[in-house]
Every structure is written in structure tokens, then in C-alpha cells.
């Protein structure tokens, strides 16, 4: 494929290619693994993630489905119960709403409801996020909603290493794992070690250490947040950037460890502000680190509108680097 071996034992590739490499490796490693979803085969995946895999693995294992999110997600659950290791691709999080019954009422409950008799080793991948002028039915960030549900795990690979490595860990997990791939990341390019493989899906990661404020984010907002941190460094503010990586279960230890060091926190979340994952993280900081804070915890989220089409409106609706910078300035100015 297009990923080329470079010198120094690294390869250059895109996020899309990293996910594809992970898929290929999983399909090669375990005959129980198969990929199913709308247009994953002949079309090559609506984001071209699975391009070429049909030719390599055939239509049984690269399984095109009809437009029936509920039944093919439910079939993934049934197949997992029956001994397979399905990877179900849903085109976008918006369409996952047609399968939410299966995810919430079956995938998340059967382990508990059966008194521990049945596990569901199912992986569901879907694209999420805005920023592509696709308007209000293709731009949602509902991963925070899913993180509300006990019984499932929610992971959000934001880097090439995680795009490459989280799938294997998700497949090794005996319970349902939802992987949210921010669609803006698919074209991200970079180098990763040629032998990159499984990564843990339990811990948040500090992507940029800093002393003055913790910027806590995930997924498509990581790049914007790192850019904000670079810019703030120019103003003498040393920001730490925490990549949550996993939204359920949240890694309290890393989040709170960072906040206790920096004594300030801004949460950056592409979900809407009200009742979102940002609110949950703020609550945990309040519960566990209130007396360590030098300032109220702040958040930069999406504005409370269905994501609009026009570029300038969409930009205004989503978290952006300048908004993050302003939020930090405000925090430092008022309380620094």
C-alpha cells in the first residue's frame, strides 16, 4: 500500500493507512475477525479506510451490509456471542443512532443481565466530528453520549500510533469497544515506528508536559489544543496537554495528577457544552481536586447549535485554537 518504509525503522503513513494496517493485521492474525458495514468492501469504505481489503480477504470477511444499522450492529453482537470477533464499521456517529438500541440495550447489558455468562467481544468503529461542511446530520460528536453507558468502552484515537494500535487492544478486550475516528484526522500524515502495534486503551496520555495549566482533550481537538499550547508558550504560559484517549472508563489518575500539578484546567471537547463529557471531567476535578485548584475549571466546547453548513458558521460553532487560547488567557488573567 502507500505506507512506505523509511529509514530509522519508521514508516510514513496517514491516519487512514494506520487504521487499515491495523485492520489488515487483525484479519491476518485471527480467523475469527471480520469487518462488516456499509460499503466496506466494493466501495472501499466511505472514508476509504478499508480500500483493498476485499481483494485480500474476500467477501466473507470484508462483508458489505445493506443499509440497516440496527440489524448489522445487532448481528455483530450475535456473532460475538457466537464466537467471532467482529469489527463493525458504521459510516458516521450520526447513523449509529439507528443502531443505538442494539448498542445500549444489548451490547452494553448482556454481560450483566446474564449474570456474567456471556461477554460480547465486539468492536464498533465509526467516524465522528465536524469541520467538513457536511452540516447538521453528518457532523456530530456524540462519543460523550456513549461514554455515559456502563458496559461499553469508548476510545478516541487522536494520533497515528493510536490509530494503528487501539484496534488490536479493542479486539483483545472481551467487552464491546466503540472506536471513534474523527474524520478530519484520516488525512493526517506522519511517521510511526515500523513495528508499531497494540497500545493500551486504559490510560490517558500527556502529549505535552507543562506547568501552568492542564488542557484536557481528545480526538479531533488534540491538534487544535497542541497548537494552542504552542502559541501560549510564546506568551510565557506553559500548558500541559492531556489526551484522554479513552472516554470510558476515564483515567482519573492521569487527569487529576495533571490538574494537581498545574492547578488549572481547561477541557476542550467537540461535543456540545451542556451535559457533555467536559462536564463530567469538570465534576470529577471538583470532587477530587477542588482544594488543589487556583481557578475555576473552564471548558471550550461546541456551541449549542446543530452544526451549520457555511464555513464561517461551522468554524464558529466548533472549538478552535484561538478559542482555546482565549479561554486559557482568561483563566490566567483572572486568577494567575
Amino acid at each position, binding site marked *: 500500500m502507500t505506507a512506505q518504509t523509511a529509514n530509522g525503522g519508521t514508516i510514513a503513513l496517514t491516519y487512514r493507512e494506520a487504521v487499515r494496517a491495523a485492520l489488515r493485521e487483525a484479519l491476518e492474525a485471527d480467523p475469527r475477525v471480520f469487518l462488516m458495514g456499509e460499503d466496506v468492501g466494493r466501495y472501499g469504505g466511505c472514508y476509504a479506510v478499508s480500500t483493498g481489503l476485499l481483494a485480500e480477504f474476500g467477501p466473507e470477511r470484508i462483508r458489505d451490509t445493506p443499509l440497516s444499522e440496527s*440489524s448489522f450492529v*445487532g448481528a455483530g453482537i*450475535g456473532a460475538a*456471542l457466537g464466537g*467471532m470477533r467482529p469489527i463493525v464499521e458504521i459510516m458516521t456517529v450520526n447513523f449509529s443512532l439507528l443502531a443505538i*438500541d442494539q448498542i445500549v440495550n444489548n451490547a452494553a447489558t448482556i454481560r450483566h443481565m446474564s449474570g*456474567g455468562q*456471556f*461477554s460480547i467481544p465486539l468492536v464498533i468503529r465509526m467516524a465522528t466530528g465536524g469541520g467538513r461542511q457536511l452540516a447538521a446530520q453528518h457532523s456530530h460528536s456524540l462519543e460523550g453520549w456513549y461514554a455515559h453507558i456502563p458496559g461499553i468502552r469508548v476510545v478516541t484515537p487522536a494520533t497515528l500510533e493510536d490509530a494503528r494500535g487501539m484496534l488490536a487492544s479493542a479486539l483483545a478486550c472481551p467487552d464491546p469497544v466503540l472506536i471513534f475516528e474523527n474524520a478530519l484526522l484520516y488525512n493526517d500524515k506522519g511517521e510511526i515506528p515500523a513495528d508499531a502495534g497494540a497500545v493500551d486503551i486504559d490510560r490517558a496520555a500527556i502529549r505535552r508536559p507543562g506547568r501552568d495549566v492542564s488542557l484536557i482533550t481528545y480526538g479531533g481537538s488534540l491538534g487544535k489544543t497542541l497548537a494552542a499550547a504552542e502559541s501560549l508558550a510564546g506568551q510565557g504560559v506553559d500548558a500541559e496537554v492531556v489526551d484522554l484517549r479513552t472516554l470510558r472508563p476515564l483515567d482519573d489518575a492521569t487527569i487529576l495528577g495533571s490538574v494537581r500539578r498545574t492547578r488549572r484546567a481547561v477541557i476542550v471537547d467537540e461535543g456540545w457544552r451542556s451535559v457533555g463529557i467536559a462536564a463530567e471531567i469538570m465534576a470529577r476535578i471538583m470532587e477530587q481536586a477542588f482544594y488543589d485548584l487556583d481557578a475555576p475549571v473552564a471548558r471550550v466546547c461546541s456551541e449549542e447549535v446543530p452544526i451549520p453548513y457555511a464555513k464561517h458558521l461551522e468554524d464558529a460553532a466548533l472549538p478552535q485554537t484561538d478559542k482555546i487560547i482565549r479561554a486559557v488567557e482568561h483563566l490566567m488573567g483572572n486568577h494567575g
Partner: protein
Amino acid sequence: MTPTEATNDDRPALPERAQALDLLRGMIRIRRFEEKCAELYSAMKIRGFLHLCIGEEAIPVGVMPTLVPEDAIVATYREHGHALARGMPMGAVMAEMYGKAGGCSRGRGGSMHLFDAATRFYGGNAIVGGGLPLAVGLALAERMQGRPNVAACFFGEGAVAEGEFHESMNLAALWNLPVLFLCENNLYAMGTALQLSESNTDIHAKAASYGMTSEAVDAMDVLAVGAAARRATEAIRAGEGPYFLELRTYRFRPHSMFDPELYRNKEEVEAWKQRGPIVTFSQRLREAGLLDDAALAGIEAEVAREVDAAVAFAEASEWEPVGDLARDVYTEEDAA
């Protein structure tokens, strides 16, 4: 709606005596178990929703002998009969009704969510239509692993109005999967009569429109159910793909324990009771000289002992410690 009589010549021939008495015993077992459940509900030993299948016993008792232990089963919240006929221990089922740790779902499921790994019983599902995609997936897993087993899926005719029904019909037929669809048409979904919810009340014709073999069966006759299920499972095992049985039956009791039955009149219920699966089958056995008062009394006494023992087991079973509340939300990975 009034019952339609099958003419005597339509009826399948009686099996030999031992087998015939097994069928009768199987139905009486379910009937007496559920009558005891209703009593225990009034005594507040059983709580939550309790849906009895009284009147419909010919379905589980007719179908189960055509399945092998390796086949998978998905059922609904009205599944006591299916669980018992499948061979789940009556004590574990009763203890589940009590919410005890000795219950088949450790008290996490209750009447609507009986599970049993040993008999591949994948639950009572309380989302109308929610079990159908699971059965499709279980069948897919059988096929992909080269196993000759069937996934049997019980559901009410109310599910036919749900999208998950149509999606699952399509997927099972499209992929030629070994699913046995068992639609228990008892003419009412709670208080909504079939003709008030379906533009076309001929349910088996709907299934046929998806290109699978489909039959309507007089499900007040345990032999007719058994014969149809035999045809169906043989066809499925021969690789002919999914098979649909519309099992025409009637529920003698209210929908659940909270139903004043405003939507149907007593005469209708009485007319159906005349055709009840236990009375008619007993009558036929008597006419054929296969059953007398002493034999019936013997069956009743044997069943009464089993029901008493199940109640004693449930009474004696422990409550799950509250400290174990969060157990089995995720799979605990012990050193495996």
C-alpha cells in the same frame, strides 16, 4: 378474532405413546410453573413485569425437540416456557424470578431476562424486535465457523411492525443464514390487535416476500408445531437458508400482571381456551387410548413435585451481596 378450526384430517399423526406423553408433560410443566409464578407474584415473592405464556405452551414444547444442544436460542420477555422446554433447570429459573443469586442470571435479569450458557439460551430480550438481529449474528457465527447449527429466534407478532424485524429478515435471507424465525402470533401486542397495527395481517406472507420459506401453523396443536419445526430445521440444516414459521396461538392470560384486558372480550378468550393446546391434546390422546386418568394424575403429581422443589430452591437461594452490585458490567479477567 375467533379461532379457526383445523379439520381432523389436517392434523399430524400421533407419535408413539411415550413421546406423546412427553409432549403433554412438557406443556403441563410450563402451565403449572407459570400458575405458580402468578401465585407467587400475588404473594410478592416475584416482582417486576411477569409475562405468562399460558395458552402458548405448544410452541416451545413443539419446537425444542427439533433443536440440538449446539443450536442457539434467542427469546423474548415471555420466555419461561422456552427456557424450561430447552432444559434449563426449573429451580434456577424460579430463583431468577425471585431475584436470587442462584437464579440463572444471578438475579440481574428477572423474569424477562433468563440466560443460560449451558443450553445456549441467549436471553429473554425485553426490547420488542431487539432479539432478531442477535439471532442473525449468531447464525452468521455458526456459518463462518463452519458449524451446522441453527439460531432459533422467538418473537411476538408485535415485532413485525418494528424496523429490526424487516432488517433482520432481509439480512438473514440475503446472506442465506441458518435462522429459524418463530413468530408467536397471539393476535395482540399488549392491547393492540393485529389488524390495528398491520396493513397486511398475513405475517407469513411478509416473511415470504423476503425470499425465505414461510409457513403459517396452527400453534394450538403441539404436533403441528413440531412437524413444522422439523421441516424448518431440516431445510435450514440442509443449507437452504432461513425459514419462517408464523405460529398462530393465543394468550389466555393478561399481557402482564398489570393488564385489565379492556381490549378483548371474555367470549373470545373462552372460545380460544376451548382450543387450548393442553385440553385438545389430552383429549386426542384419550381418544386414541394413550392417556387415562391415572396417567394424567401421574404427570400432574410429578410436575407438582418439580414445581415445589423449584420454589424450595428459590426460597433457599441466597441474595447476591450488595457488595457485588457492580460485578459483571465488564468481564473480569482473572488469570486465565
